[in-house]
């Protein structure tokens, strides 16, 4: 009789050795072991066996890996080369998985759908993130690109544009930049082949394109000297979009001339597409250095490219040295600092970045939820299939094979889920693109690309393995006999599996609570933003831009001013128009013209800090048209001219800040405080409005009269009962009678302007809310599934209880309690988690804190209520147990 060699060594041996020769090698070793056992005894044979088996295993593995299979050629005829064999085995496993999915179609459908929701959502959000955040800037070496800002730290201003004089000084004095450039936006009338249109024209210095490293598609960009005083300003570089839409990508456009504002510009080149900067304008012209450089008006955005080898820190030190010198040298630059910002902000603003990462987190949670759900379903099923697994084990399938088969099943589900999810995401991405709120760069180009496919596949594989492994490892391998005997009916034996399922439900609930709280906070913030007192009325208000030409000479200016006055008076005499006025910047653009201000003769009125006001040039009736109350004094009239002596109307907040409790009318106001300073007389006080952004406090506003000047373009506000469709043609015809060359564009209602200003916020809110709803549905499905499973397993127990006289209510209570226990646990954990995680959303909220208790209460109530329902349905089924039938089954 042969003795058994050490079992553990044999087991280990089996792990390493290629399967095709494993048995033969073990038999050889066993023979030799037996010979040693008889001649030397166990004490010598066992260590020998250990040594030999390990050495054997390693050598075989090496020989197999580097020299090919060791199996006998005769043997290999039947089994094929090993790789092919594994492949065939895998295919066979997958076929098995597919067959078993087909066998239980309902189960498979729900599992695939669960996964598809998670995977589809993650693929969609990842597509957006990839397109918005992860796509590199279209400029070479973007890490060397920087934003350059002036700062005034003692005035709490850390990101202001450059003054002309400071820009040219920094340009000449710096030692850190390879190139430095600036840009100035205008809008001009372009005379194409059709009617005149307004286009966006940007004047750029030579350094601007050089900093970006732009290689023109056709022709050239500006070269040295073309931005020097006296150079020809009438050169044009076309943006790619403008070139495409207006000239059909005609390469012969270079050298031809186009007409802007009545003057001929020579086209010298075409830019490649490139966001930001290059796509922002239609035409780029040279920025000629003015002969007089102003040091008080912050107007120029500046960008730069660091010289090779210069670090951001070194550049900061260099640039701060310049700032200090300028600050000492010029009174107007006093307190000046300079800040460098990385070009990351060109990709996406901080709040957008934050919003997208919150969405990514949410999607991660959703994927987890669908994983947990699937694991739960597979777990429930694996219990019912315990007999099948036990049978396989009894027939000699190694445990690894049983696990492998179970994994193959979840893999089939995972791949199907990924396929359906991807199909979903194609649709979702299309919807997202069409919902494009603006303000989210690159959203329009978002698509499901190879990367997304890859990530999705990765997620699917991970999900399948993670979810498949849980039940596979729990498959009853050790206790084959009892599993075979009891099969599906074993109840007590699955107590631990039951606990695991309940824990999974708790996890699901907790995860969805976090998502729901996040969504709830955004929804409530959104409500607050819309409900905020904006100060102005939006109903029946329409804004239209009128493209009056900029008028360089005095006589032209007088004519243009007359045109505006005539236009307004004609409109006001139209019966359907309640009132009409013009303003130089539309409300809610997120920014606007501003200045420091103070009370004349009382520098201490506002303390050390210089308050910042938005200023607007308006015609009379602007306040009436917008519904702002005139609190004191009077509105502008045509005798109030723009310029010295300044007559101004201020908002209520300005008056209360400077002259609290006193009449502001007739007081003198310091304008552009710290930037040159003029004085103006207050002739009126009007109500406050949130002019820049709904989420900012009501703006300190200072209004100047339009008279004596022109606006290019003028933004017309009309209070009218007419629809846009009738109003705009009417405006066109009124204007055409006065001057047919003036374009009318950009018609929109004030309601739409308000809507646009919150569009990005709405977008994020809708997305997170959608994810949260999916999470809720999945969690409810999970609760329902587990409980109905439990009920079906305990049917006979229920029958027995009822037969023994338990009331329906008590049985119902029993089942409900069992179902709700993990829900309550999940609620507690989820709310704690939400409290911890929601502070990452602080910057996305408005008017509430991340610990806003009504949100938490509402979410908890919603989930608990829904969970009760999800528990009630299976619990009620438990009551419908046919007592006699179940007892007979027992």
């Amino acid at each position, binding site marked *: 009789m042969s003795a058994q060699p050490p079992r553990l060594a044999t087991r280990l041996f089996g792990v390493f050795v290629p399967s095709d020769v494993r048995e033969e090698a073990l*038999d050889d070793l066993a023979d030799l072991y037996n010979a040693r056992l008889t001649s030397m005894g166990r004490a010598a044979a066992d260590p020998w066996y250990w040594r030999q088996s390990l050495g054997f295993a390693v*050598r075989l593995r090496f020989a197999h890996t580097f020299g090919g299979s060791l199996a006998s050629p005769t043997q290999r005829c039947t089994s094929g080369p090993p790789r092919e064999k594994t492949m065939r085995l895998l295919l066979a496993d997958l076929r098995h998985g597919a067959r078993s999915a087909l066998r239980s179609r309902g189960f498979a459908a729900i599992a695939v759908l669960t996964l598809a929701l998670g995977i589809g959502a993650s693929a969609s959000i990842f597509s957006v993130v990839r397109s918005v955040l992860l796509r590199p800037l279209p400029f070479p070496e973007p890490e060397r690109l920087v934003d350059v800002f002036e700062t005034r730290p003692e005035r709490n201003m850390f990101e202001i544009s450059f003054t002309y004089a400071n820009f040219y000084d920094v340009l000449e004095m710096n030692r850190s930049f390879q190139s430095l450039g600036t840009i100035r936006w205008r809008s001009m009338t372009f005379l194409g082949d059709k009617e005149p249109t307004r286009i966006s024209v940007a004047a750029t210095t030579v350094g601007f394109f050089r900093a970006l490293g732009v290689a023109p598609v056709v022709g050239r960009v500006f070269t040295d000297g073309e931005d020097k005083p006296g150079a020809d300003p009438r050169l044009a570089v076309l943006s790619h979009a403008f070139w495409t839409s207006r000239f059909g990508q005609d390469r012969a456009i270079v050298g031809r001339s186009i007409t802007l504002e009545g003057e001929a510009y020579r086209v010298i080149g075409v830019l490649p597409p490139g966001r930001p900067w290059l796509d922002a304008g239609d035409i780029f012209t040279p920025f000629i250095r003015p002969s007089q450089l102003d040091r008080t008006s912050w107007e120029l955005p500046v960008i730069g490219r660091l010289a090779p080898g210069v670090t951001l820190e070194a550049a900061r030190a260099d640039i701060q040295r310049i700032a200090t010198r300028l600050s000492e040298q010029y009174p107007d630059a006093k307190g000046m600092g300079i800040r460098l910002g990385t070009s990351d902000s060109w990709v996406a603003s901080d709040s957008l970045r934050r919003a997208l990462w919150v969405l990514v987190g949410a999607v991660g949670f959703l994927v987890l939820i669908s994983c947990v759900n699937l694991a739960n379903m597979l777990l429930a099923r694996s219990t019912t299939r315990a007999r099948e697994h036990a049978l396989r084990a009894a027939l000699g399938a190694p445990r690894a094979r049983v696990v492998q088969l179970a994994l193959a099943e979840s893999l089939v589900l995972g791949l199907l889920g990924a396929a359906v999810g991807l199909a979903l995401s194609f649709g979702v991405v299309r919807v997202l693109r069409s919902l494009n709120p603006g303000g989210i760069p690159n959203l329009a180009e978002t698509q499901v690309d190879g990367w997304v496919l890859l990530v999705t596949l990765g997620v699917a594989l991970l999900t399948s393995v993670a979810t498949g492994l849980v039940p596979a490892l729990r498959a009853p391998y050790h206790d084959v006999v009892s599993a075979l005997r009891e099969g599906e009916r074993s109840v007590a034996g699955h107590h631990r599996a039951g606990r695991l399922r309940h824990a999974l439900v708790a996890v699901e609930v907790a995860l969805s609570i976090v998502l729901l709280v996040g969504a709830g906070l955004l929804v409530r913030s959104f409500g607050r933003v819309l409900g905020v007192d904006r100060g102005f009325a939006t109903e029946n208000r329409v804004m239209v831009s009128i493209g009056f030409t900029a008028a360089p000479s005095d006589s032209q200016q007088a004519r243009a001013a007359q045109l505006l006055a005539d236009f307004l008076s004609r409109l006001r005499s139209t019966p359907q128009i309640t009132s009409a006025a013009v303003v130089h910047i539309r409300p809610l653009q997120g920014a606007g013209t501003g200045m420091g201000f103070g009370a004349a003769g009382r520098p201490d009125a506002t303390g050390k800090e210089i308050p910042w006001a938005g200023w607007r040039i308006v015609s009379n009736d602007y306040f009436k048209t917008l519904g702002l109350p005139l609190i004191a004094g009077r509105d502008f009239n045509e005798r109030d001219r723009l310029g010295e002596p300044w007559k101004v109307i201020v908002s209520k907040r300005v008056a209360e800040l400077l002259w609290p409790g006193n009449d502001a009318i007739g007081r003198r106001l310091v304008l552009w405080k710290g930037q040159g300073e003029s004085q103006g007389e207050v002739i009126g006080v009007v109500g406050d409005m949130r002019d820049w952004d709904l989420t900012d406090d009501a703006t300190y506003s200072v209004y100047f009269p339009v008279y004596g000047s022109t606006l290019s373009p003028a933004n017309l506000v009309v209070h009218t009962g007419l629809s846009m469709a009738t109003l705009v043609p009417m405006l066109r015809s009124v204007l055409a009678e006065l001057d047919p060359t003036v374009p009318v564009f950009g018609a929109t209602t004030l309601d739409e302007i308000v809507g646009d200003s919150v569009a990005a916020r709405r977008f994020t809110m809708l997305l997170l809310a959608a994810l949260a709803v999916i999470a809720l549905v999945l969690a409810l499905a999970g609760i329902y599934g587990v409980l109905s499973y439990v009920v079906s397993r305990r049917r006979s127990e229920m029958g027995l209880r009822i037969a023994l006289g338990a009331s329906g209510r008590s049985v119902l209570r029993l089942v409900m309690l069992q179902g709700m226990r993990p829900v309550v646990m999940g609620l507690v954990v989820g709310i704690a988690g939400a409290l911890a995680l929601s502070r990452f959303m602080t910057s996305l909220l408005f008017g509430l804190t991340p610990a806003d208790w009504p949100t938490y209460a509402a979410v908890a109530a919603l989930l608990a209520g829904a969970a009760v329902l999800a528990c009630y349905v299976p619990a009620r089924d438990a009551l419908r147990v046919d007592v006699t039938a179940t007892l007979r089954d027992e």
Partner: protein
Amino acid sequence: MPQRALGEFEHYVLLALLSLGGRGHGAPVVEALQSTTGRAVSPAAVFIALRRLEQRGLTRSSKRDPRPGEGGRGRRVFQLTPVGMAKLRDARRTLERLWSSSPASDLT
């Protein structure tokens, strides 16, 4: 299969197989080698060599059921093929020629 000279260890393994009557499975070959060379022989080396020799056509193998008391799932029995025999004869002839031309042929 390209013709290639026998390695020293392969040579030993074939000779051990010959000493077993031209056929045998792994363990006896190991034992035979160990007893004639007086050195420890790695079972793994023998195991691999037997199979590589088979792939070169010098041995062939068949599976037989375990004998009573043997345990395991059967043994792969290797047998010298005519090619293997010819290879051994060649090797021997080469060696003899080398020995006979050596001035130290009276060494033994």
